[in-house]
Structure formats: structure tokens, C-alpha cells
């Protein structure tokens, strides 16, 4: 397997159904003269899973026969939920987590949002569009808590950033 193929198999520690490539956290893998350089970007700056991701990538590459591995942090351009791949979105929905919509495009000062935005989030359990936000902050930095008004089930939603 190429180094890029090995790196692409490594999964996210918090969302193990997704690979780091699905999440858009894995930015690049380059290989030259036996040395592999992997660039990853944090979803949120405080993400406590970054160290684990680094370890997991290094272990996977070393055990696949690439002993010389360097994992680089890349902060810019900042991660956006738009980088979650189509297969990543399917896997999220299959795991009961609503995938993000399109991230907001920004020009000029950021407007203040005083009421919860109108929902376009579909319930991953029953498919209803009648869902409401309960909290913008969930079990991990990248997810919000929502509830479906149709089937009454709570679910998580990956925030658009």
C-alpha cells in the first residue's frame, strides 16, 4: 500500500465510523526518499483528539513499513465542515448523526445571530425536517444537540463552520 492509502485508513478517535480523510482532517500525504510527511488540520483548536490522531497515523504508517514519519499540523486554511466527504456524510447519517449543510460564506463583519436559525436539518432516524436545536454545543466541539419533533428522538448534528 502507498503511504497515502495507509493514512487514508486511519479513523477519527471520536467518530470511529469516519476516517480522517472522510472528515477532511487529513490534508496531504507526501512520500520521498522513504520519508513520509503527513499534514493534518484540527477541526477546532481545542480538539483534544489531535494528539491521538497523530499517534494513530504514525502507528499505522510505521506498522505498514514506513519507519520515517513526520506528522505536521496545518492551521491554514482553517478546517471547514464542507471538507467532509460525500462518503463521510453518508456514514454520519448511518450512525444517527445529521451531517452538516453548507458552511456559511463570509464577507465583511460577522452578523450577530440572536435567534436560532431556521432548521434545514433532517432527522437521521425518521427523515423528518421538523427538528429543533436544543443546544449548539454537544458532546464534542464539532456537534450540536437537536431533537426531532416528529419521532421525538434526540440526535447530534455536525455544525456548519
Amino acid at each position, binding site marked *: 500500500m502507498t503511504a497515502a492509502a495507509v493514512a487514508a485508513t486511519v479513523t477519527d478517535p471520536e467518530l470511529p465510523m469516519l476516517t480522517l480523510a472522510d472528515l477532511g482532517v487529513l490534508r496531504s500525504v507526501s512520500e520521498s526518499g522513504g520519508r513520509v510527511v503527513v499534514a493534518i488540520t484540527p477541526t477546532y*483548536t481545542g480538539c483534544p483528539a489531535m494528539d491521538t490522531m497523530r499517534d494513530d497515523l504514525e502507528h499505522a504508517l510505521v506498522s505498514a513499513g514506513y519507519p520515517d514519519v513526520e506528522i*505536521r499540523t496545518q492551521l491554514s486554511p482553517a*478546517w471547514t465542515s464542507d471538507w467532509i466527504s460525500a462518503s463521510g456524510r453518508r456514514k454520519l447519517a448511518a450512525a444517527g448523526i445529521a451531517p452538516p449543510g453548507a458552511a456559511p460564506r463570509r464577507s465583511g463583519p460577522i452578523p450577530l445571530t*440572536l435567534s436560532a436559525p431556521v432548521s434545514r436539518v433532517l432527522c437521521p432516524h425518521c427523515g423528518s425536517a421538523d427538528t429543533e436545536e436544543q443546544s449548539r454545543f454537544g458532546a464534542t466541539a464539532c456537534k450540536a444537540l437537536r431533537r426531532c419533533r416528529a419521532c421525538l428522538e434526540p440526535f447530534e448534528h455536525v455544525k456548519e463552520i
Partner: protein
Amino acid sequence: MSFDNVYEAITEENDARWAFGTGFEDPLSGMDTSVPSGVDGARLAAYCLMLGDDALIFSHRLQEWCTNAPELEDEVAIANIALDLLGQARLLLARAGKADGSSRTEDSFAFLRAENEFRNVRLAELGGGHFGHLIARLFVFSTWRLALFQQLESSVDPVLAAIADKGVKELTYHRDYAAQWLVRLGDGTPLSHSRMQEGLDELWPYVGELFRTHPTEFVDAALPRPEFDAVLDQALAAATLVRPSSGELAGVSGRTGRDGVHTESFGYLLAELQSVARAMPDAKW
């Protein structure tokens, strides 16, 4: 790497995967951290320290709300905001250690400096009070920081610009969370209204400091003021609250948080923040 069960994962030897304690990997690892030509590294470091300390100390105050917030959802929200700010602090303190050539780590900045070496604004260290105080602080802090970080996205230092670019997305959520509570409490019952106004009134003397440029500062601290005022007015109007008119709290001979002059409660905060690291300075856990 994956494990068949969680117990296997936690018994692995020499495991650096736990997100607490010392022994973190450098959060800027692998990034080009050279100081751009024409930029004074010591000055850049001093500025990153100011912004990093703001985030570190305010994050600590937010963490004190764990188990004390009115609802579980707010516990989670406040803890998430604290975590984002801690992430910003890690990057900024690490940047400071690279820019001044001292190679000091984020841990040595956070755990091994004395009170008068911290450069955070005094507003970041205010603790105690009720939920109205917390929301007032969080709204003012995140509105100010978001306006400032939008300026920093075009910083001459690419590392600082990248940190700001990421921070802007997080701070947008923080500001919205605080503003929505500000409106709910301000435009709520007579009691919640008076508590919210009280929170703003007591915090107001610390606001002027946010916009006064310190000599070592890297950008003009007054630049974010117009956006800050516009957002504040919008939120206050929706919340039926009034902008406090009290004056600015004086420093000591003009010296304030950016000069290492802090309020009385700051020493207690640092004692808690640093006690374990100071008791066991070489510990890794």
C-alpha cells in the same frame, strides 16, 4: 490504531493519548514558525502572550462553572467554549515561545510564571457572581475578541493570522450563545432583567482596558471598537438593557492587566491553576 475494547486502550504503555496533564506534543508541530522579516520577534511574542493569557485565564473562569450552570445544556456549552479558548491559548503560548527564541513551551508559560508575568486583561480574570455576571463577561469578551481576531486574520505573522482565522469560527458561536442568553435574561422577568443589567454594570469598568493599546502591542487595540459598539448596541436593544455609563477602573500608576497588574482574586486563580504542576514540576501523567 484501534483496540478491541476500551480497557486494552487504557493499559497501553507510554501512551501520550490522554488530553490532560503535561507532556503534550507541541500544538504547532511541523509548522513554519520562523519570524517574518521586518518583525520584531520579542514584540510578537509579547503580543501572543497577551492574547494567549486572555484565553487561558478566561477559560479557567469558565471551567469553574462546570457543575454550577443552571442546565445540563449550558454546562456542556460553557465547557465547550472553555475548551476552544484553551486550544487558542495553547497555540498562542506556543507561538510566543517560538517567536522570542526562548523555546519555552506552553506548559512553562501557563504553569511556571508568577502573577505579575501574566499579561491578560483584568476582565478575563473576574470570577464569582451569578449567571448574569457570567453571560455579561462572556458576551463582552467574545464580542471583543471576535472583532479583534477579524483584524488579526491579515496579520503580518502568518502563524498568528492562521490562529485568528480558526478562532473566528469558534468565537462566532461563543458570541451568539452569550448574546442569546443576554436577550433571554434581559427581555425576561423583572428579576432576570435586573440580574442581567447588574452583570453588565459590574463588568463595565473593565471594558475600557480592552481598547487601550499597550506599547508592546502589535496592532492598534482601538480598531475593533466600532464593531464591538455596533454589536453591543444591537444586543442591548433586543434585550431591553442599557449601556452602563460608569467610568473605567484605574490601574496602579496607570498599569493594568497588560502590565502584569491584576485584581486581588487573580492570585487565588493561579494557585489553583498551577498547584499540581508546581508540586511535581517534572511529572508526566
